[in-house]
C-alpha cells in the first residue's frame, strides 16, 4: 500500500475554549482537497458497512494537536426500521434527523473519519425552514423532514427548537439570500445577517461576531468531477498524518434500546477508505491481484454499477420496513475502539442507492428462506417479468408479495420460467402452494402454474473445486514473480504452441457437447409439452 500525504488546512477560526484555552474551535477546514464548513452534511465511512454514515458537522476543534469533530447523526431508514411501523413509509432517499437528548444523537470523532460532503435538503414544512425548490429536491442526495428521537425511538414530523444544544435553524435549509458558493469560490467573504442569539455550544460561548454561516451548497457531483482521477498507484491508501499516535476511536454510541431485534456487530471496526467511484476502478492487469487488499465491504461496494438498470421497473423492491432484512446495520452501534491506522482516500463517496435495493433482494430472500415465506413458482411463461408475476399473485390470490424472476441461463428450460415470491407471512406462502397444487391456475400460454416452498441455495463450495482450472504445486512457488502471476491471472487467449492450447480445445469440445445436449433435451421436452397442450380445449 502506498503512503500518501493527505492535505489538511485549518480555515476560519471561531473561538478559544472557555475552560481550556488549549482548545481552538474552527468554522472551516480543508481536508484532502475538500473544504468543510460548520453545519455541513458529511459522510463518514466505517469498515464493513456498505454505506457511509451521514452526519452534520456541529462542532470542529483542535485540542492538543488532535482534530476533532462533533457530528449529529442522520439515520437511514434501514437503521431504524424496527421503529418505522405505523408511520408513513420512508421515501427512497429520505433520512431522519436525530433528535432528543440521549446517547446516539451525536458523537465526537477524529476529523480523519470524514470521507466527503453530502447534499442533504430539508423538506420540512416548518415555517422556519426555507422551502426548497423542485430543482434542489431533485439534486439532493438525501432529504429529511422527520426526526427520530434517540431516546423514545419515535418518529416525528414536528421540529423542535433545538437538536441537542444546537439551534434547529442550523439544520434547516439556508435562508434565501444567503450566498451560494461553489467549491472554488473564495472563503470567508460572505456574511449573512443572523439573528443575534448568544449561541452556546457545549458550554462555550461563541464569539458573536464570528457567527457567520459559511455554508454553501455544494453538490456531491461537483466534487466528483473536480477530483482528479484516481491513478492505479493510489489505491488503496494510508495516511501519513500521525495516524499511529492518534487515538483511533470511531464512536457512535449505543442507544439505550434492547438489542432484541438488532444484530450486534462485535469486534473492532475502523474507519475505512473512501471508495473511488466505480467507474474509475478499471485499472490494468495489476489490479486483479490488488483488489483483495481492499476490505471486503469495499469490494462489494465497488461492485455496484451503473449497469444496474436505470429503469427498475415498478417498485418491486420498495422499502419494507417491517420485513427484517437481516442486514448487518443496526440502529445502535457498539462503541468501537481500534488501534489501527485510520485510512482515507481522496474521493468523496459516490453513493449509489440503487445498489442498496439489489443488496436488499438477496437479504430479503435469505431471511425469507429462514421464515418460510419464499415460494418458488415454476412453469411460468419465461418472458414474464417480475412485476407481472407480482400482479398475477395479487390478482388471483389477493396477496401482496415481492417477486423476482430467476435468470434464464444457458441451461434453463426455454419453456418455463421460474420466480421467487416472498410473502409477508408463512401462512400466505403455504396457502398459495396448497391452492396451486390442488387446483389449477392456467397461464395464457396453456401452462399450469406450479409452486413449491423455496429452498435456500447450497452455500458456495470451495473455489478450488472448480473443475478445469489446473495448477501445479511446484509452479505455485514460482508465482512470486509478478510476470508469472500476471500470466495466469491475465485473461488471455492461449497460444497454439503451449500446453494449454490442446487442453483448452478439449474443454471446448466438452462445452459444445454439453450445449448440444441441453438443446436436445429441451427440444424433446418441448415436444412432449406441445403434445399434451394440444389436448386442451380452452386456451
Amino acid at each position, binding site marked *: 500500500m502506498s503512503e500518501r500525504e493527505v492535505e489538511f488546512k485549518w480555515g476560519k477560526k471561531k473561538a478559544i475554549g472557555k475552560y481550556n484555552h488549549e482548545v481552538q474551535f474552527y468554522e472551516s477546514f480543508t481536508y484532502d482537497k475538500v473544504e468543510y464548513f460548520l453545519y455541513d452534511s458529511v459522510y463518514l465511512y466505517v469498515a464493513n458497512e456498505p454505506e457511509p454514515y451521514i452526519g452534520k458537522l456541529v462542532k470542529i476543534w483542535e485540542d492538543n494537536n488532535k482534530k476533532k469533530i462533533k457530528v449529529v447523526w442522520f439515520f437511514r431508514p434501514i437503521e431504524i426500521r424496527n421503529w418505522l411501523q405505523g408511520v408513513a413509509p420512508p421515501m427512497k432517499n429520505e433520512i431522519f434527523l436525530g433528535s432528543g437528548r440521549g446517547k446516539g444523537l451525536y458523537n465526537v470523532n477524529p476529523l480523519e473519519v470524514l470521507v466527503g460532503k453530502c447534499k442533504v435538503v430539508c423538506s420540512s414544512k416548518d415555517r422556519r425552514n426555507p422551502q426548497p425548490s423542485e430543482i434542489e429536491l431533485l439534486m439532493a442526495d438525501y432529504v429529511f423532514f422527520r426526526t427520530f428521537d434517540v431516546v423514545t425511538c419515535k418518529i416525528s414530523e414536528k421540529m423542535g427548537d433545538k437538536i441537542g444544544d444546537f439551534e434547529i435553524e442550523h439544520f434547516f435549509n439556508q435562508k434565501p439570500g444567503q450566498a451560494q458558493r461553489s467549491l472554488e469560490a473564495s472563503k470567508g467573504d460572505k456574511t449573512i445577517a443572523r439573528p443575534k442569539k448568544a449561541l452556546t455550544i457545549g458550554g462555550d460561548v461563541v464569539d458573536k461576531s464570528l457567527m457567520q454561516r459559511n455554508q454553501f451548497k455544494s453538490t456531491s457531483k461537483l466534487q466528483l468531477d473536480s477530483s482528479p482521477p484516481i491513478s492505479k498507484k493510489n489505491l488503496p491508501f494510508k495516511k501519513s498524518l500521525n495516524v499511529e499516535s492518534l487515538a483511533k476511536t470511531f464512536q457512535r454510541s449505543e442507544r439505550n434500546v434492547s438489542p432484541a431485534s438488532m444484530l450486534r456487530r462485535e469486534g473492532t471496526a475502523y474507519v475505512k477508505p473512501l471508495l473511488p467511484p466505480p467507474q474509475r476502478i478499471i485499472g490494468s492487469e495489476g489490479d486483479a491481484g490488488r483488489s483483495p487488499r481492499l476490505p471486503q465491504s469495499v469490494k462489494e461496494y465497488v461492485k455496484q*454499477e451503473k449497469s444496474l438498470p436505470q429503469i427498475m421497473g415498478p417498485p418491486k423492491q420498495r422499502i419494507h420496513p417491517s420485513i427484517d432484512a437481516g442486514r448487518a446495520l443496526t440502529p445502535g452501534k457498539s462503541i468501537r475502539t481500534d488501534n489501527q491506522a485510520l485510512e482515507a482516500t481522496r474521493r468523496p463517496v459516490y453513493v449509489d442507492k440503487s445498489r442498496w435495493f439489489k443488496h436488499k433482494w438477496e437479504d430479503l430472500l435469505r431471511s425469507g428462506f429462514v421464515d418460510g415465506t419464499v415460494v418458488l413458482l415454476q412453469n411460468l411463461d419465461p418472458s414474464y417479468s417480475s412485476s*407481472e408475476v407480482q400482479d398475477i399473485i395479487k390478482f388471483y390470490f389477493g396477496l401482496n408479495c415481492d417477486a423476482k424472476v430467476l435468470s434464464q441461463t444457458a441451461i434453463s428450460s426455454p419453456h*418455463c420460467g421460474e420466480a421467487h415470491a416472498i410473502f409477508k407471512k408463512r401462512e400466505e406462502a403455504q396457502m398459495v402452494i396448497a391452492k396451486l397444487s390442488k387446483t389449477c*391456475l392456467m397461464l395464457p400460454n396453456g*401452462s399450469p402454474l406450479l409452486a413449491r416452498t423455496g429452498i435456500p441455495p447450497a452455500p458456495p463450495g470451495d473455489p478450488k473445486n472448480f473443475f478445469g482450472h489446473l495448477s501445479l504445486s511446484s509452479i505455485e512457488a514460482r508465482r512470486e514473480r509478478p510476470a508469472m502471476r500476471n500470466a495466469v491471472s491475465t*485473461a488471455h487467449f492461449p497460444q497454439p504452441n503451449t500446453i494449454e492450447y490442446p487442453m*483448452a480445445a*478439449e474443454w471446448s469440445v466438452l462445452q459444445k457437447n454439453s450445449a448440444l445436449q441441453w438443446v436436445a433435451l429441451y427440444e424433446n421436452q418441448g415436444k412432449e409439452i406441445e403434445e399434451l397442450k394440444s389436448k386442451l380445449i380452452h386456451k
Partner: protein
Amino acid sequence: MGISAEKEYADFEDKVKRTVYFDNLSPKVKESVLKTALSQFGTVVGVQFIPNYSQFNNLPLCALIEMESVKDAKSVVAEIANYPFMILGMPRPVRVRPAEAQMFTDRPIKPGQKRQCRWVDPKEPDFQVAKKLKSLARTHAKEALCLLQIQLEEEEKLAKEQAESLKEKYNKFKTIDNLLIDGTMRRLASCYNMNVADE
C-alpha cells in the same frame, strides 16, 4: 415524467444487444477481473453476476456483462466463440453468447403481454390435462437436474484426466530439464559425438 412502457422496453432491448452472457467462470472471478479481461474488446459498462439457486454448490458462475456499444458486444462474442479464452485460470475456457432478454431478472414488462390467467375447474376435462402438464413439468425439471449432474461428472472426469496428463508431462519436462542442468546431456552428447546446442 413517466417513461412510456414502449420506450422502456426499447431501451432495455438496446441494453440486451449490448450485453454478453458468460458462463464457465471460475468462482474466483470477480467483477473487476471481468472488467479487466474484457477491456481489450471495448469499454465495459457493467457486470452483473447471476446467482445460482440450485443445490449444486460448485457450478461455474454466469455473468452478464454490458458493453458500451453493440459493436463491442459483437466482437466479444465473435472472438471468444472462435478461440478459447481464459479468465483467471487454465485451461478451462469461458463460454460466451449474446445475451437474451430473459437472462435479465430486472427486465421491464414487455408491452402487449397477455396476462389473463384462469382458474380451471376440477370438473372440466382440461383439469386432467392440466394435471398431466403439471407432472410433466416436474419430470422435466428432474430431467434437467439429471443432465446437469451428468455433465458435472464429465467435467470432473476431464479435469482429472488433464491433471494427470499434465503432471506426467511436467515430470517429463523436469527430467529433461535436470539432465540439461546437471550436464548429463552434454556428456552423453560427447559420447555419441553429437552436437547439443546450449540453451
